């Protein structure tokens, strides 16, 4: 909401500084976001006095003028306007200034004549559309004064952010009330003349409200015999300063009064209304109606219409109809001042994608008793600008008259909630200052009647806020609270779903950072198209109903799209050798969930480029399966979990080597290399990209409740024996591990892989294992170990198609 300081001063005699005013408003919750001068572009322009005006020797349409712009000598200006004449006071753009359109004024020769400036039209000054000639100023203006002062323009306007609860502050009057209360100043309502004559308005038009719950009050006045013209300068300039485009005297007055008093008004051309009746009622479903912006709208049964005897004429509170709009030839009008239901107005505006200053105010609530004053004020102003006769009285229907609210207020409660020491008398003064009626009920309670324009004051706590506002939140002392609470257990900390705790996720982040991965944070949405290209677009994808763009039209079911995009972004920037992790939710449709979505916490790991952070003293190798697998094994060990099982699996499709991980029979994620074609074409990666996603909620569940219990170690010495197996391709290391684990060799303690060697041109592979033997009660002799080791070798040969080297 704009607040022109000049306009404000018409309501309350504020004389302090602008800074103080802005600060005080901000500290009252009316945040001054900007101080602006709506006419800043006119700053360099001056009042000029045309001393002499003679025709240009070389051009019939031009005049050569001598113009006094306050300097020692007049300046020569060549002017092409037909209406320029000696003796006029005019607006001059001097050399060095620029027109609002951007044209720079320079000293020039025009058809041989010197010109040191430009005499401007209103259009050139962006004050109106008038380009028929130059703008002629009041003869009383002094040459050389700034145009801004000469026109008495509103050059200081505050842009104030109005919170949705403060409908009353969507007007100069409302803001003036706050200023008056804050600085203890009087408040003056605008004074106006209203000369009624002739027939009673109510005999010319009948108001019938069919939906009283949506329209508690509808009233109108009729003005006859007026003439539509442009508004006078003061009105036009004021609307311009408030950011509104002047239209004609009637429309301008209804806008002006809306800004001034907060009551939206609508003027109908009465000659276009039929049947002598105004009916307020709901539209039929599917009914069509053309609003005054010439758009045909399809209405629903909840949309409220203003209708005459035969047709709809306005979308109540939102926009008038094209069929009854004021036009240049209108002479009779019906001026509406009504109150419409906030919620319904908003619903209509939203469903039709239609917003207006009027709807904005009705949505937030208008002052019902105040609407009569606004109607009379507007009628008086129209009469003074457009002439005409105001019919006697108003046509009114008020099925739901305004009833003041009564709120009981306990000063003690205010004191304890605000931690301010204010007594009942001080509270009473604040409440009276903002227009409340206050009556002490007994020593502990005040009975408060908030004014009709403060729709936000409904409950005691609303009044408490007013006390706080006017005493100043800044006077509240800071104190740390005592914290009493029943400690929540870990399960109670995740609400609405069974997910990993915040602490577990944090611990995982710390682990990943320690492993040398950089944390990425990506949007939770991705594009359906991208999911399709990765083969992730199966039926569980949750679409976003109203996405900002197609790139964000789906909730991500996996972290891969974001991480892969990070690869592309970085490679495009020349950043190579990437290691990312991300911990975030993924989403899957789930009709059984109260939110229709299943959310799960995932850990995503991605690496690409070199295995090591530098060349020397490392070797230059590309990252491989074992690097990422090693990191994951490290992670599980750090959680106290046993090693997971890695085995070829079927998903996801965008990976070439697809390895699924299972732990205690539960699927916990995958690990794989992105298909080279996808990596290169979509993500610009020419060397392997390895990626893994791990379900952290499952891991959290599996690793929870583990506690470390110290176990003494066996004190007898170990004995180690190596064994080398020649393995065909179908034998995997884990099969060997499984056979040894199942071998039941009593003293066999552990195994470690010593070497993997694949001779040239052989499909077979030599695995060398070191087996550790240890007895928990005695030192083993060489003989005992040899026997067990031999036994183990036999079991391996029997269970698997392996052999020993010759």
């Amino acid at each position, binding site marked *: 909401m704009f607040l022109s300081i000049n306009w404000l001063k018409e309501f309350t005699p504020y004389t302090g500084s602008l800074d103080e005013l802005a600060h005080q408003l901000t*500290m009252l*919750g009316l*945040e001054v976001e900007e101080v602006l001068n709506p006419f800043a572009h006119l700053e360099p322009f001056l009042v000029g006095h045309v001393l002499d005006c003679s025709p240009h020797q070389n051009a019939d349409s031009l005049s050569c003028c001598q113009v006094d712009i306050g300097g020692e000598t007049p300046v020569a200006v060549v002017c092409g306007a037909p209406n320029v004449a000696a003796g006029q006071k005019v607006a001059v753009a001097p050399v060095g200034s620029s027109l609002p359109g951007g044209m720079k004024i320079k000293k020039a020769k025009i058809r041989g004549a010197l010109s040191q400036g430009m005499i401007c039209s209103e259009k050139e000054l962006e004050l109106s559309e008038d380009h028929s000639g130059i703008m002629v100023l009041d003869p009383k203006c002094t040459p050389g004064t700034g145009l801004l002062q000469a026109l008495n323009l509103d050059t200081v306007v505050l842009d104030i952010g109005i*919170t*949705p*609860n403060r409908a009353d502050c969507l007007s100069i009057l409302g803001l003036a009330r706050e200023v008056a209360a804050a600085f203890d100043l009087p408040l003056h309502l605008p004074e106006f003349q209203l000369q009624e004559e002739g027939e009673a308005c109510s005999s010319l038009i009948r108001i019938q409200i069919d939906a009283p719950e949506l329209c508690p009050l509808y009233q109108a006045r009729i003005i006859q015999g007026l003439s539509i013209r442009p508004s006078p300068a003061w009105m036009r300039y004021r609307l311009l300063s408030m950011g509104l485009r002047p239209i004609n005297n009637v429309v301008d007055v209804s806008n002006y009064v809306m800004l001034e008093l907060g009551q939206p008004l609508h003027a109908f051309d009465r000659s276009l209304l039929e049947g002598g009746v105004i009916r307020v009622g709901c539209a039929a479903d599917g009914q069509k109606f053309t609003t005054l912006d010439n758009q045909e709208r399809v209405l629903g049964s909840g949309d409220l219409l203003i209708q005459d005897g035969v047709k709809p004429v306005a979308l109540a509170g939102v926009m008038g109809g094209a069929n009854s709009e004021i036009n240049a030839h209108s002479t009779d009008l019906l001026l509406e001042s009504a109150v419409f239901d906030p*919620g319904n107005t*908003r619903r209509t505006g*939203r469903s039709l994608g239609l917003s207006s200053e009027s709807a904005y105010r009705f*949505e*937030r609530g208008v002052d019902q008793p105040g609407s009569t004053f606004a109607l009379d004020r507007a009628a008086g102003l129209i009469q003074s600008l457009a002439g005409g006769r105001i019919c006697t009285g108003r046509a009114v229907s008020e099925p739901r008259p305004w009833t003041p609210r009564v709120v009981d207020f306990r000063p003690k409660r205010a004191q304890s*909630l605000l*931690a301010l020491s204010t007594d009942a008398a001080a509270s009473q003064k604040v409440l009276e200052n903002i227009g409340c009626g206050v009556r002490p009920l007994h020593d502990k309670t005040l009975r408060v009647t908030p004014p009709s324009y403060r729709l936000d004051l409904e409950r005691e*706590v*609303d009044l*408490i*806020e007013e006390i706080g*506002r006017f005493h100043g*939140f800044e006077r*509240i*002392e*800071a*104190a*740390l*609270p005592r*914290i009493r*609470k029943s*400690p929540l257990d870990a399960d109670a900390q*995740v*609400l*609405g779903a069974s*997910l990993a*705790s*915040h*602490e577990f996720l*944090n611990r995982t982040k*710390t682990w990943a*950072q*320690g*492993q040398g*991965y*950089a*944390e*990425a944070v990506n*949007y*939770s949405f991705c594009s359906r198209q991208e999911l399709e290209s990765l083969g992730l677009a199966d039926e569980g994808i949750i*679409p*976003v*109903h109203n996405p*900002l763009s197609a790139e964000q039209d789906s909730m991500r079911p996996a972290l891969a799209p974001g991480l892969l995009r990070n690869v592309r*972004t*970085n490679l495009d*920037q020349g950043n190579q050798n990437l290691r990312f992790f991300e911990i975030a939710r993924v989403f899957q449709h789930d009709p059984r969930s*109260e*939110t229709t*979505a299943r*959310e799960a916490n995932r850990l995503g790991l991605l690496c690409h480029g070199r295995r090591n*952070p530098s060349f*020397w*003293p490392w070797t230059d190798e590309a990252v491989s399966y074992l690097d990422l697998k090693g990191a994951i094994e490290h992670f599980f060990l750090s959680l106290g979990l046993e090693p997971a099982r890695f085995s070829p699996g079927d998903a996801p499709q965008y990976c070439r080597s697809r390895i699924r991980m299972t732990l205690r029979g539960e699927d916990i994620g995958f690990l794989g290399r992105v298909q080279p074609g996808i990596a290169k074409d979509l993500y610009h990666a020419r060397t392997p990209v390895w990626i893994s996603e791990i379900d952290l909620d499952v891991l959290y569940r599996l690793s929870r409740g583990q506690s470390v219990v110290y176990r003494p170690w066996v004190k007898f010495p170990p004995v180690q024996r190596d064994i080398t197996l020649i393995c065909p391709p179908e034998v995997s290391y884990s099969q060997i591990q499984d056979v040894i684990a199942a071998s039941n060799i009593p003293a066999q303690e552990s195994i470690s892989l010593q070497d993997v060697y694949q001779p040239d041109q052989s499909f077979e592979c030599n695995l060398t294992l070191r087996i550790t033997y240890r007895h928990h009660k005695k030192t083993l002799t060489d003989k005992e170990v040899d026997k067990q080791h031999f036994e183990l070798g036999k079991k391996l040969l029997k269970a698997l198609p392996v052999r020993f080297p010759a």
Partner: protein
Amino acid sequence: MTGEDFAGRLEAIERDFARALERLEREADLEALRVAYLGRKGSLAQLMSSLPELPAEQRPAAGKRANECKKTLLDLLSAKQDALQAGGQTADRSRFDATLPGRRDWIGSKHPVTLVLDEICAAFTAIGFDVVTGPEIENDFYNFEALNIPREHPARDMQDTLYISDSIVLRTHTSPLQIRTMETSPPPLAVIAPGKVYRRDADLTHTPMFHQIEGLLVDEEVSMADLRGTLTYFVRTIFSKKTRVRFRPSYFPFTEPSAEVDISCVICRGTGFCGADPCRVCKQTGWVEILGCGMVDPAVFEKVDYDPERWTGFAFGLGVERVAMLKYCIDDLRLFFENDVRFLNQFQAC
């Protein structure tokens, strides 16, 4: 053999050992010398094995003398080793460059949002708050309705919403956790709720996803002084002890009274100027808006069946990116979600 012979041979061993040691030049050869003289089959051991041949009364003295000899040899050996090592450092200089890069491994980093989020959570858990989390896809009820934002309330305009369906939204704030917490736990309670939130908004200063932290404390006789104290503590923990805090009245449907909190600008220290240049972060006001807060609206308590006459409380919500931008002087919000490693790597030391 007599005791004298024995002593003479010990002396000879010492003498030979000393001579051999003198000639020795490489540290690697020390071990061979040690084995030759002091090893299990070395000269000293061989001599010792003849000890029983001595007359019984001479044996103790000879044994003692042999031990002395052993000690002498060991001392000489270790002195020589020290000398060789000291000399070796100069001798090997050509092959040892202490300035070559070490075998340094990758350094990872946490995202600045995580860092700030952690720090804020730590500040609050330190004074007794619990951390709670909840769903990011929310019911209209938790995101709006229960927070006193009915349908067709103009307050819905304060947050442009991304919808999944008519009644399911991407949560626009972490405030639904207020309701979920109170539904789950009886008062008194003190929780903070960090997480991602979503708005249908994208420009220089808005991203469609960002992070918030919600705070809620409910007890008897909680006042705005408690709210002020808690937030002042928080601000001074995260920024500096000298940060000033300003409360301005504002409006949120689920708090009453409501306030916006400004802190003295951390970039220009509240002066409005950085040197001679006007501060761009606070637009010369000396204040930056950092969070919204207020006393829990009684209407919210009624939704979760808390008695608003008995229980009062405060709630606050703050944007994590905003704090991170101030803390790390980041001037472009979009950097947070581009994940350029030149950005991420700058947080390795955090």
